């Protein structure tokens, strides 16, 4: 298994990884869910994370995002040790994530959802003396993000009245509203119709090249087109790291993962 950084898309070979999770180990009770996992992403890299149900993919996301403090191991973002930092600090350092299960402000409208994220992104959340409505830059970026993601029709709809697929889009939009350097997407197309999946795939492919992406995806086809490299997790262990082609051609993945499909 290669531990050298793959320098995807011709980024200079002296780049320090923008995301570096080193020897992460974590247990839930007696269950070893993450077993000395090491992950290095070069700036701008598109990295896929696959593995069967319960392999520990979401747990690894939660560790990278700071929701879970691992038993051992370290996480660095852009060379900064964030192992002890809370999720909100990591978010402010440029790490955004979407959730496997939609995690939205369901009683609020799409516009309000995006404006909340926008207020944080624009660093105005602490302003208590000036009307929110007058922070036009926040609302303008919320609107333009909605337009870019095809949510402009539903801007003033309360989220819980939206279809599942549209809520899923908003889930991604909230993460994008932070204008992150690193974006973690946990099964972005889960539960979507084939058309919605295709649209989501196109949207992800069109994200700026400077954005570093780590995507958990069950739909192998989505990842094979999208990813520069793929990490295969199995029972908390890294089974294989390599290009999509290497992963597809690997016997062990065929038997352990693809064979299960």
């Amino acid at each position: 298994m290669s531990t050298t950084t793959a320098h995807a898309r011709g980024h200079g070979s002296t780049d320090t990884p923008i995301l570096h999770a080193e020897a992460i180990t974590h247990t839930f009770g007696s269950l070893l869910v993450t077993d000395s996992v090491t992950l290095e992403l070069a700036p701008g890299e598109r990295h896929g994370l696959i593995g069967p149900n319960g392999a520990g993919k979401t747990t690894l996301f939660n560790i990278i995002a700071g929701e879970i403090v691992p038993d051992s191991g370290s996480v660095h973002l852009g060379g900064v040790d964030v192992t002890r930092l809370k999720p909100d600090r990591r978010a402010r350092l440029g790490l955004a994530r979407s959730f496997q299960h939609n995690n939205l402000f369901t009683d609020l409208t799409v516009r309000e959802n995006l404006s909340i994220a926008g207020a944080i992104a624009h660093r105005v959340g602490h302003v208590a003396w000036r009307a929110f409505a007058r922070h036009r830059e926040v609302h303008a970026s919320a609107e333009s993000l909605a337009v870019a993601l095809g949510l402009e029709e539903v801007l003033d709809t309360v989220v819980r009245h939206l279809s599942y697929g549209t809520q899923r889009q908003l889930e991604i939009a909230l993460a994008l509203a932070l204008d992150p350097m690193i974006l973690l997407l946990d099964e972005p197309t889960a539960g979507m119709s084939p058309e919605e999946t295709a649209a989501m795939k196109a949207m992800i492919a069109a994200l700026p090249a400077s954005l570093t992406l780590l995507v958990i995806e069950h739909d192998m086809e989505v990842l094979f087109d999208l990813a520069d490299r793929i990490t295969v997790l199995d029972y908390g262990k890294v089974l294989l790291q390599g290009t999509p082609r290497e992963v597809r051609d690997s016997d062990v993945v065929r038997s352990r993962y693809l064979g299960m499909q």
Partner: protein
Amino acid sequence: MIGRDPLHLPVAAALVIAAGVAWYGGDFFRHEVLAEIAIYAILAMSLDLLVGYAGLVSLGHAAFFAAGAYATAACTVFFGWPVSAATVAAVGCAAALAAVAGVFVIRVSGVFFIMITLALGQMVYAYFFKASEFGKDDGMAGIPRPDLSMIGLDATDPQVFSALTLIAAFGVWALLRTVVGSPFGAMLVAIHRNESRVRALGCPVPRYKLAAFVLAGAIGGFAGSLIAQHSGFVSPDLGFWTVSGEVLIMVIIGGMGSLVGAALGAVVMVLLRHELSHRAFWEAIGLPADLASYWQFVMGLIFIAIVLLAGDGLYGRLLTTWRRLRRS
């Protein structure tokens, strides 16, 4: 969040007009009640910032009420400070208490938050009950009202003092209105609705909760200062948990998450307390005057009715009714 409440300005205007009409030509008793309503409205609005906006259900808000009242008493009686300076000191003391306590209480949420704030309130109560320098359970008397001779007014005149408290209540409403309409207010609502998501978006949630707790505590202290000036004395009862409970009931029956709702709750609660305990009231509506001794029982029945008939409080009921009328 904020923009979707079309009634707050009309209702606020109606309350201001009603207060003006009640004040104009009111007698001594009327002005006493008006001042009390105004002071409890301030307390209820400050609690609503926590309960209705930030989702922090506190059962210890009377701690700040008492702290503000005692600080006012100490500054005026012990140090002979002018009432204006004592009021500022009261707000500062309550804010400091909220900041120190807040660091601990905002770590927990839900029912634990209710319990820990209840404990905080009872600690403050127990302290004043035992502190001999503050007169133990007798409290302190002789707290003056502001000296308004410069503008030719006398604040010991109930009419003048009630006007003062009503203006103060309006000022607090305007201040809190600004806060809840700001990005900070939107963050509080977001924290209330989905704390884990706001955190993932990069909001330092504990800092925001603490800021809300301190602001609410400071305004609670302001209300406490006014109640000390109003009655001229302070006692540990101001910090007793039933006071916290009463203010929470005001917020709930008035309408959580709406400042005018909280003020409305204070109006209803203070008026009911005064009317139901008066024999004349029962006689006037043709019922036995002895019912006046059962006023707390009747009040309980009324609250149950309000909660059953208007789950979102009176203001919430008003909003849904208005929306239904507009749709038809």
